[in-house]
């Protein structure tokens, strides 16, 4: 049986309450989202794109195989809070170096355990993502109301981007990476495809980026609403046409906005590792890892030289765009996996081809 820290609860904006055992010292306030992946909790926990969110795991058994630093996708966990069914006390895997509980404590992620996570998921599915808080059970109503009234977070990218520019690898192609909260495995992938990287803070001016004379530019994933960062969008506009651009997730949304398209907040987004995406150029379907709460509005593409390259098989939303006026393309899903399925190497190869001028 779990060591019970104290009783706690998740209170949603609409007043609904889910009780559980509370691990962690601080309160959590944030947008409550769910993700449906069955494995990969550590990759999810450390994915900077979740910055500021309270994440509900639909799979009930979490922590089974422990924690190993090699799986971290960011420098730390940016979760506001974590809601799970069961926390594994005794993980078992040769890679396990510590328990999930110890990791969460170190990362200071308030975690509510023993919760009917399916019930929360059904609520979010119905109402859309909601603001919520994780607090101790005895928290007064005034305090709860006050916490729920906290203004929504904006520009989370500023919190997760690198403070300093740095370089990585020694591959053939020089890629300038704009770090909006980049996942470790994207950095790994690019290096595997023979790239060496200069990673820039998100707000680096275009001139500075171009000054290193890269072969291509990569726009990374990241947290929050792309419309929060007009300065970055303006910057990207200056990069367009100068060098081939490849974007993932937030990078995809920012590139779309930079090209005059529009984005919108989805009801509850796509978060999981089982998301089918159709490649409209080949007609083939790939299963992808996804984590996005915003999407590019298809209508906003009308009259523009932008082609939809990928769509979600679940709801038809845009999962990838190709730009006709300059050598750029981007996908909404996560070809780098971690967590989730691989098999998307073709996108990276395409980026290389573009840099080669092919």
């Amino acid at each position: 049986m779990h060591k019970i820290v104290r009783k706690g609860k998740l209170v949603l904006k609409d007043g609904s309450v889910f009780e559980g055992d509370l691990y962690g010292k601080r309160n959590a306030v944030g947008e409550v989202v769910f993700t449906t992946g069955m494995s990969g909790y550590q990759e999810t926990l450390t994915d900077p794109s979740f910055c500021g969110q309270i994440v509900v795991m639909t799979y009930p058994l979490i922590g089974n195989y422990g924690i190993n630093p090699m799986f971290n996708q960011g420098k730390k966990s940016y979760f506001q809070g974590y809601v799970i069914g069961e926390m594994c006390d005794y993980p078992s895997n040769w890679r396990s170096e510590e328990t999930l509980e110890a990791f969460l404590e170190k990362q200071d992620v308030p975690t509510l355990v023993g919760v009917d996570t399916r019930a929360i998921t059904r609520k979010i599915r119905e109402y859309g993502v909601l603001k919520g808080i994780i607090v101790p059970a005895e928290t007064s109503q005034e305090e709860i109301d006050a916490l729920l009234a906290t203004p929504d977070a904006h520009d989370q990218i500023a919190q997760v981007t690198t403070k300093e520019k740095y370089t990585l690898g020694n591959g053939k192609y020089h890629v300038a990476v704009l770090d909006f909260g980049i996942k470790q495995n994207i950095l790994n992938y690019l290096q595997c495809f023979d790239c060496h990287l200069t990673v820039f803070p998100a707000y680096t001016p275009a001139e500075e980026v171009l000054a290193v004379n890269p072969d291509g530019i990569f726009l990374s994933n990241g947290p929050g609403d792309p419309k929060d960062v007009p300065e970055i969008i303006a910057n990207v506009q200056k990069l367009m046409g100068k060098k081939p651009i490849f974007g993932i997730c937030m990078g995809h949304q920012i590139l779309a906005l930079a090209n005059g398209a529009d984005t919108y907040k989805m009801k509850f987004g796509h978060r999981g590792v089982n998301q089918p995406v159709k490649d409209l150029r080949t007609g083939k379907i790939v299963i992808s890892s996804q984590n996005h709460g915003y999407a590019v509005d298809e209508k906003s593409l009308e009259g523009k030289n932008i082609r939809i390259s990928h769509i979600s098989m679940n709801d038809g939303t845009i999962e990838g765009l190709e730009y006709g006026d300059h050598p750029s393309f981007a996908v909404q899903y996560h070809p780098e996996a971690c967590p989730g399925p691989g098999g998307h190497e073709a996108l990276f190869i395409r980026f290389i081809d573009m840099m080669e001028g092919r």
Partner: protein
Amino acid sequence: MPKLKNIKKVLVIGSGPIIIGQAAEFDYAGTQACRALKEEGLEVVLVNSNPATIMTDINIADRVYVEPINVEFLESVIKRERPDSLLATLGGQVGLNLAMALDEKGILSEYNVKLLGTQIASIKRGEDRELFKETMEKINQPIPESTIVETVMAACEFGKKIGYPLIVRPAYTLGGTGGGIADDEEELIDIVQKGLGYSPISQCLIERSIAGWKEIEFEVIRDAADNCITVCSMENVDPVGVHTGDSIVVAPAQTLNDKEVHMLRQASIDIVRELGVCGGCNVQLALDPFSENYYVIEVNPRVSRSSALASKATGYPIAKVTTKIAVGYNLDEIENAVTKKTKACFEPTIDYIVLKFPRWPFDKFVTADRTLGTQMKATGEVMAIERSFEASMLKAIRSLEIGLTHLEMPELKALSDEEIKDRIKLIDDQRIFVITEALRRGITIDYIYDITKMDKWFLYKINNIVKMEKALQTHPLTPSLLLKAKKLGFADSVIGGYVGKTMMEIREMRKANGILPTYKMVDTCAAEFEAETPYYYSTYATEDEVAVSDKKKVVVLGSGPIRIGQGVEFDYCSVHSVWALKELGYETIIINNNPETVSTDFDISDKLYFEPLTLEDVLNVIDKEQPEGVIVQFGGQTAINLAGPLDKAGVKILGSSVDSIDRAEDRERFEQLLTDCEIPRPKGHTVFDTAGALKAAADVGYPVMVRPSYVLGGRAMEIVYNDEELKHYMSSAVKASKEHPVLVDHYLQGTEVEVDAICDGKEVLIPGIMEHVERAGVHSGDSIAVYPPRSLSESVIRTIINYTNKMALGLEVKGMINIQYIVRNDHVYVIEVNPRSSRTVPFLSKVTGVPMVNVATKAAMGRSLKEQGYRAGLKLFPDYYAVKAPVFSFNKMSNVDITLGPEMKSTGEVMAVDYQYSRALYKACIASGINVPHEGSILITVADMDKEEAAEIAKGFEELGYRVTATGGTAEYLNNHDIEVRVATKVSEGSPNILDDIKEGHISMVINTTNHGRDAERDGFKIRRSTVEHAIACLTSLDTARELQHVMSAMRRRRVISIVALQDLAWED
């Protein structure tokens, strides 16, 4: 319309009878396939020899051929029906092998039949060891070092080269038949020798053993456009070394990190792509627990047992999707039948844990070798769904119906700690219970892990169960502790056991404290999308998702896991009962726990609760749904056993009342009924000890039939001939007591007759009467049954009608009744009455044209036979004969005696129909797998009392040109009766002996009956087992032998291959 425009008529091959390694999952898959094809407007021709299936119903396929599944019969069907295409990947290994044979013989090309779905070349790449190895090497997928041998010598050489242990797998066999792990050369020689015999192509794969690694499976689906998804990962709790069919399996994989999961997932997809499978495919892999090294173990390029499990575990209908792919659709063109909004091209994600537990037949085969290895031994399985491993495990245990409600086996209590430690080493069906007992005794997880290599994650979880037991034993039962115990899956009765309360008291305490199960949906997507499947499981959480309608509803209880004595036939009955209730306008609710079945397909009933069939679990559903009542008469003994307790708990039992059931089951009340109706039965007594038994036997006269008072499938039932044997039986086979009396009945040797009838309370409809080939004494489930009867006189038939009417009305049956009679010298005696559906109902329904379960369900719901348009009385006999023959799985079970007797041993059945009796029986023999020889030598070795009959039979065979071989006494007797006999050496007379004759192929069939002395049986046992190992026919009932001889005589110069579709049978009203 199908995507492929040139398809109009599809031939579907079923998997035939239920045997170990091939159970009800193929009825589920095949039924889904046929329905999916019909949805496309295609004409479906089906061949399957197993009548106890939904798929052989005349409304499932347009042309149903219940015929032997072999090349000759299939060719005949193809010739007549001229299908343009063939779907073979849904009929198990049988279907696959046959498709390959039809291709090889050029039959597919001759008749222009296109193979749908996975093509021959792909099947071969997956099935043929050498091609598979080449393919894996080509795409750099690691497989254990291995070699293919055709001789024992080659195997030994390989052993010398790479060392031991080695695994032996014979090529093209079911469930790993004949395989095993060899620790040294001596063992290798033994296993390979047998393995070469089992393999139809005399090939064995020998490979490095990776026993102890994690065993992981992926279910993969690929379409013709090369879209490829995985439905589900599964992890075996038992590491590599135990056949996956005998392993406890969880889904999804629990102890793999994301990298490992996706590494193996990608490998599975790469493999399926390279093989070029079109449809469902199962990939088994072994993962080193201490590195990312893995090996590919095996691929099944077809729908399998695991895919049935994965379908039920996720809600993703693999068989249906495979069928749609076969007719040309791509995954993104197929609807997700669960959400109705998304497409089939996605990967299911689940928000619960599924656990599969095998059901073994060791309760029936008490002498069998219980160890588990590469040879599958389970007859069936259960599945449990919950939100924790512990609760899933405990639900599964409750579902098994092995007399346990918890992960605890009382008999292990008696063992010392040392004995328990020792027992952990034994890999058998009880190991998980031994491990739990060890944890209870404080033996460490590390100690257990070192021996079992079972991942510690599982051991920790099991230890949580043990910890909760201790908490219940040492703490007062507060509502909070009770809730925790319920969340871990403890049954009310188990909790009560620890705190000195009854199950009902705990239930009341739960209700008083608001501790009630909630029901959640299985929706393929972890609630991401709204789903429409009415498929639920219970868990102790906060939100309940079931919307209870205000329609009138009925609960139908299913029959749980497939086991000997309770097979797929009861699932057939449950499904038909649901359909009948739907016709009457009821909302139907099914409760069952068998993932292999049609009844647990989510679109059969209006609601499916995947739950154990125990009083607590059933009452919880009833509390929730408030149905009008429960139907128990179609779920076999499982459901019948619940009738009394449910009735007591205030639940209405629909149809025949609990009192009717009790009057048939309770010996005294049953005798009273027979006395009242003036119906004779063999004389007998109820006894409580050995002295009583001897006295009873003296009174009724030997031979006597002895059995415990409560039996299922003739368990522990024996015929004994003298005091000595009776004493032995009383002291060893049963533990008689006041609570558990033993029945001693005079054994009447006569013709056994079976009747299934339907009664509405006023009138009785008798669709048919079946006559058994074997005399009474052979369990009815193991007998060959013939409809209509051949030898019964008009007066006997009239008496049977009369008795059936009297008993059905006397018992106030509303619904089904099954009665077994013995006819001796034109007198009719009753031996057993069951006011419920029986094993023979699907068979009889199919050959009489009376939809018996439908009519009986409606009768149970108050519709009279007249209202339903049926005339009372015995239906007119048809112009054809139908034969039902048993099928055994003896080659999967070493150390089991194959002699037929009162204990049921068969695992399945086949049917054959023909206008000529001999041909019907002959076809049934072929379909059942009896290797009927057309020439050669027949070994006859029989008990003294059987010699006269045996001589007559031997004479018959001799006239047909067979030679006769016999030993000792039998040889002399036959010689004296004018039969030319080759005398063989008895086993006890040294070697070479009769066993060598069998081994060397000098014997083509054996007729053997046993002397009733325990020691004298040993020789016979060896002979019988050796016939199993060398796949030659062994008849242990002279009745079967005589009938076979007559039939062979009648068929000598006749065409054997003659087919008839069930749709063409002329049924008279």
